[in-house]
């Protein structure tokens, strides 16, 4: 096993990985930016190295600085977490050439699946259904119109290197398509330094279902069941759960099988997530593969009993997958709420600042993954997520009741958070019935604004 690992990330996921390492007896080197330098979670690491200024470009995205920190601290492997460099194939390449184990898929797999049009082609080659759309990058306005006319409106424009909802635009006719093209390209350029975009049929009334996959270096690939992340706002996931409350066992099996097909096609290693849209009719479409640990991985951990981070580290170290597919039997229901430092009553404006009072919920069935505490200063430089509240119970009804109870207990003062929104969503009868689609939150919000 590795004796020392670097965590090239920050906040809750850095702490999550440090915790796994401590339990495995692995020393940890945490990197940090100037802004995070005094953050308390860093005390859980054995060594901390400040790698750059507060802005992520100079620190958490600064490959030379991170590799240099890896060299002076003599680490054997780097866990990239999610976001930042986790899906940057160049970073994985640099690690590989520096003889540092990158805890994730091989750089060539990152590259292949990181390009959405490429990933689409792989899925099609596997006979996994994809959303009808442009087979490749859109090069001209005319090409965009041709594609739209062929597949029919509404269509959605997406960034080839995209993720997290940025660079996405829905168009219902020629005029809105032409207008949206330039905007989407500009967004894609600024967010991903790659203006290339593609067009897909926009399927209305869909659920978001994703499959956790895991591969080792010896060709063994399994799935750990699905997660349902239909509750989103502007393509940002808010509440995730496993199992999905709205798909039949047969559909579940089909989707998981499709995920395995794609993973096998690229000889996938380590943890990954294959995302699908599921239409009301029960048709499913491949969207993309996230070649990293997901924010919402804890819900899979709860229902399968498997520690995904420890498993990632073991696989990266060259161990064989010690879990047989037929032994993966998810049990119970897990739900996760993301708690963001945002003001839901004020356009979800970010809420950097000092947390003056902090009391997380506890008791049976409650897990809190968070790096914050009373006195913690939420920096303005990074993602607004400050905590993940996960509950685990036998039934979905009990899980919802437990989440309600836990959200009610959760005290965060000094900054506004999405706790009240989460409470409203989790207590909504439509969420309880499972009868929602990916537009549910936005419809609800616009309704409450009108009233």
């Amino acid at each position: 096993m590795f004796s020392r690992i670097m965590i090239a990330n920050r906040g809750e996921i850095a702490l999550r990985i440090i915790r796994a390492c401590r339990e495995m007896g692995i020393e940890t080197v945490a990197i940090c930016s100037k802004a995070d330098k005094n953050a308390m979670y860093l005390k859980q690491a054995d060594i901390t190295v400040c790698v750059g200024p507060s802005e992520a470009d100079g620190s958490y995205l600064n490959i030379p600085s991170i590799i240099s920190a890896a060299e002076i601290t003599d680490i054997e492997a780097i866990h990239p977490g999610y976001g930042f460099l986790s899906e940057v194939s160049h970073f994985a390449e640099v690690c590989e050439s520096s003889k540092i184990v990158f805890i994730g898929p091989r750089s060539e797999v990152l590259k292949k699946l990181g390009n959405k049009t490429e990933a689409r082609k792989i899925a099609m080659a596997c006979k996994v259904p994809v959303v009808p759309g442009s087979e490749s990058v859109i090069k001209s306005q005319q090409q965009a119109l041709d594609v739209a006319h062929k597949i029919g409106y509404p269509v959605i424009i997406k960034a080839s290197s995209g993720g997290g909802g940025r660079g996405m635009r829905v168009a219902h006719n020629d005029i809105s398509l032409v207008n949206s093209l330039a905007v989407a390209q500009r967004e894609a350029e600024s967010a991903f330094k790659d203006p290339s975009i593609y067009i897909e049929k926009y399927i209305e009334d869909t659920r978001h279902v994703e499959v956790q996959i895991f591969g080792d270096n010896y060709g063994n690939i399994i799935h750990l069941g699905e997660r349902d992340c239909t509750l989103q706002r502007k393509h940002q996931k808010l509440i995730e759960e496993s199992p999905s409350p709205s798909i039949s066992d047969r559909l579940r099996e089909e989707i998981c099988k499709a995920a395995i097909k794609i993973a096998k096609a690229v000889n996938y290693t380590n943890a990954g997530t294959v995302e699908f849209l599921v239409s009301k009719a029960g048709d499913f479409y491949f969207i993309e593969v996230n070649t990293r640990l997901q924010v919402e991985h804890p819900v899979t951990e709860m229902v399968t009993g498997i520690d995904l981070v420890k498993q990632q580290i073991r696989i990266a170290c060259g161990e064989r997958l010690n879990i047989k597919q037929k032994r993966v039997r998810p049990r119970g229901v897990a739900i996760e709420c993301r708690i963001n430092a945002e003001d839901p009553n004020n356009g979800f404006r970010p809420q950097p600042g000092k947390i003056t009072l902090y009391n997380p919920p506890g008791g049976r069935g409650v897990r809190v993954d968070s790096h914050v505490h009373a006195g913690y200063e939420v920096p303005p430089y990074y993602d607004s997520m400050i905590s993940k509240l996960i509950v685990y119970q036998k039934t979905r009804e009990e899980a919802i009741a437990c989440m309600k109870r836990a959200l009610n207990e959760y005290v965060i003062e000094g900054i506004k958070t999405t706790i009240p929104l989460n409470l409203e969503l989790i207590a909504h009868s439509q969420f309880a019935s499972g009868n929602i689609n990916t537009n549910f939150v936005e419809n609800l919000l616009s309704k409450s604004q009108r009233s």
Partner: protein
Amino acid sequence: MSVIDKVKQLISIMNENELSEIEIQEDVTKIRIKKTEVGYTHTVASSVAVPSIYPPPLNHKHPIPVLSKDSENITEIISPMVGTFYRANAPGADPCVNVGDSVNEETVVCIIEAMKIMNEVKAELVGEIVDIYVNDGEAIEYGQPLFRVRPSTK
């Protein structure tokens, strides 16, 4: 005391006592430091005029250490990058600067090795070196104070 500070102190002790290895475990902290056989063994890819891939060093005012008496007009040269600090630009060579030396904007005060590349760090100010915080061969992080400088009043 941060682990980095502890490591620094341990290296000082190692240097003073000519030790080659030290390992301590306190509570949950474990530090192991081992010196390479020779001074430094890396291959110096290019010892002069390596174009730095990093921004120029910052003149960042740090809180003056508690022990300091001459608090007037003292500034520090802080590290612009993570890496290994070397006082000379080649093994066995004289240090770039010593305490008491005068420096100007262009004076190379040390070398920081990062990703096998030797980066020259310039003083970026005019003044006199009054203290060197870091020992030769030490690991340093971004923003770490390296030199204490008394700026010249032009």
